[in-house]
């Protein structure tokens, strides 16, 4: 692994620049992606480097942005289309779910759709209920889409490369609160296969399954529990569709206890899907019900105090781990 440290956002930007340099069929279209470089600076410098032909500023038209990508992909280009906030996925859902996701299947396999949707999800910036959501469960519910939610700069670059090179429609979600987080990233372009989870900490007592920013919180919770003598195994799914179930089940059969953690609301979330899959395929190995940590079933609140009690964190994850192990919290009277 390289010892060069860059941010999550720089990893995205650098990866995209290298992908575009290597493949003239790749272009980017979206709101403010060109001259401005994107509202989160995701595309800084790319307009100067590649010009307006390949860095295309579009109207505020999410349906037409995705449609632009679909039409261009179906005739052989490799578009990257940007939705400024993950919440705006809902504005474009017909083009995403009824068109992009289904074309290949409906056309009997005759279409190839190498389109990547890039977007920014997650809470923590007091952006309110329409600019903070984690809507991955909606996307994962649609057959035909691949959905990627990296938690480190290294994964960001490698997974972005895999998304753009994939011949299926993919969605890669940056977490807005992690844009400045740093980590080691090789300078050269590399690819992390889609659908492969990473075991980011090995343990034997309980498995934490997570992705995106919560994968980082899980590592912090595991550190806390280690001080209490509990060895957590932490799995970062990285790709949430398709899910690397083999890695999850192997760990479940080893530790016999699972806590699934995501920032999205618990109700109808990926935790529910994972809990079902695990009990269907590893029921006899479980020593406790699969536990879930997620946001409560409400819109994301605006006020910082409300928002911080809404978004799960390492402390809440640690509590859930203790509960699944039937262990009292340190200092509590049991």
């Amino acid at each position, binding site marked *: 692994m390289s010892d060069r440290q860059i941010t999550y956002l720089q990893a995205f930007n650098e990866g995209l620049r290298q992908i575009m340099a290597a493949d003239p069929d790749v272009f980017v279209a979206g709101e403010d992606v060109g001259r401005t470089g994107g509202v989160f600076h995701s595309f800084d410098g790319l307009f100067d480097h590649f010009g307006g032909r390949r860095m295309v500023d579009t109207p505020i038209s999410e349906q037409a942005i995705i449609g632009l990508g679909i039409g261009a992909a179906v005739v052989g280009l490799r578009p990257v289309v940007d939705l400024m906030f993950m919440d705006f996925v809902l504005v474009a859902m017909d083009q995403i779910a009824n*068109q992009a996701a289904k074309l290949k299947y*409906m056309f009997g396999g*005759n279409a190839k759709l190498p389109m990547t949707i890039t977007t920014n999800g997650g809470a923590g910036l007091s952006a309110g209920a329409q600019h903070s959501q984690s809507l991955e469960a909606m996307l994962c519910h649609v057959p035909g889409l691949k959905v990627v939610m990296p938690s480190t700069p290294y994964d960001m670059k490698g997974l972005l490369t895999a998304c753009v090179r994939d011949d299926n429609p993919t969605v890669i979600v940056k977490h807005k609160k992690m844009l400045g987080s740093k980590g080691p990233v090789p300078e050269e372009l590399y690819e992390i296969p889609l659908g492969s989870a990473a075991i980011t900490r090995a343990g034997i007592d309980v498995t934490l399954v997570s992705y995106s920013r919560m994968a980082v919180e899980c590592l912090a919770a595991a550190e806390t529990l280690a001080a209490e003598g509990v060895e957590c195994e932490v799995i970062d799914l990285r790709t949430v569709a398709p899910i690397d179930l083999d890695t999850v089940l192997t760990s479940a059969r080893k530790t016999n206890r699972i806590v699934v953690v995501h920032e999205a609301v618990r109700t109808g979330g990926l935790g529910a899907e994972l809990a079902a899959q695990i009990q269907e395929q590893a029921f006899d190995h479980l020593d406790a019900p699969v536990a879930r940590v997620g946001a409560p079933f409400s819109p994301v609140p605006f006020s910082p105090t409300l928002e911080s009690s809404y978004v799960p964190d390492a402390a809440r994850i640690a509590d859930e781990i203790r509960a699944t192990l039937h262990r009292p919290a340190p200092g509590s009277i049991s």
Partner: protein
Amino acid sequence: MSPSPETVKDLHERMVRIRFFEEAAGRLFEANRIPGFIHLYVGQEAIASGVCVALRDDDQITSTHRGHGHLVAKGGDLNKMMAELMGKATGYCQGKGGSMHICDLDLNMLGANGIVGGGVPIAVGAGFANKYRGNDTVSVAFFGDGTTNIGAFHEAANMAASLQLPVLFVCENNEYAEYTPRETTMAIKDVVERAAAYGMPGVVVDGMDAIAVHEATTQALQTVRAGEGPSFLECKTYRYYNHHGIQTLGMKYRSDDEVEEWKGRDAIVALERVMADDDIATRFEIDAIRASVQAEVDAAIEFAEASPMPEPAALLDNVTTETLR
């Protein structure tokens, strides 16, 4: 400028092919030999034919839920079409798509579409790719009057105009959005007025006159192909059958007199009159074309009927490029 005799014959033959295919599909649907829904194109043949005859093979089109006519006009294989309508493994989409998702990417027909307005942004995307590659290929979005009330249409039209993309918007105004007359859903006289809002040229064409549609398309394509941005055609037309299925008369939302009036202006009959009057083809030659197309349609039915249904094992093929198990 009148089109060459060859062009007129081409227009005619494509219209007849659409008409006979659709009439056959309607009968098969009524006999429960075609499952699902069917939205017949009968009555509107002059538009698909008029536009597609004016296109090059490399030009792309997107279509609608009423999409058989567009694929036939682009040169679609009737065997594969009929087989797809019947849900057979030999169909265009191996039975995965059906009437509303029929497509032929080799012919640059990028698909019928079950969502009203769904195909228009995709046509704009194809147009973007043509400009990106620096070629002079154009894309055509076919859609109905009802589509111009949905947001995707407006986003796509504005996108094409603001990025100056080589896209031709072809509105087939058959005056009804499913079962609702246009005047109750639109406060403008002509749909083409909407083109002006996006700064694109637009004209109204008699959609029952294949030569007029061909001529207007040829005109519009001159600027579109030259990279001067998108253009818009509103073709006034009528569908003889109900929105769905094969009923023609006795509908609550339109009068029988109206249907008969439009049928009296039938585009195929009108063109055949021109062909005979202008010595482009004799009645005998016209009958021979009709007979040969009918034989083609009959053969397609035979092919489709004899074809196998898809194997259940194919169910999960092509959800993505990797087969899921």
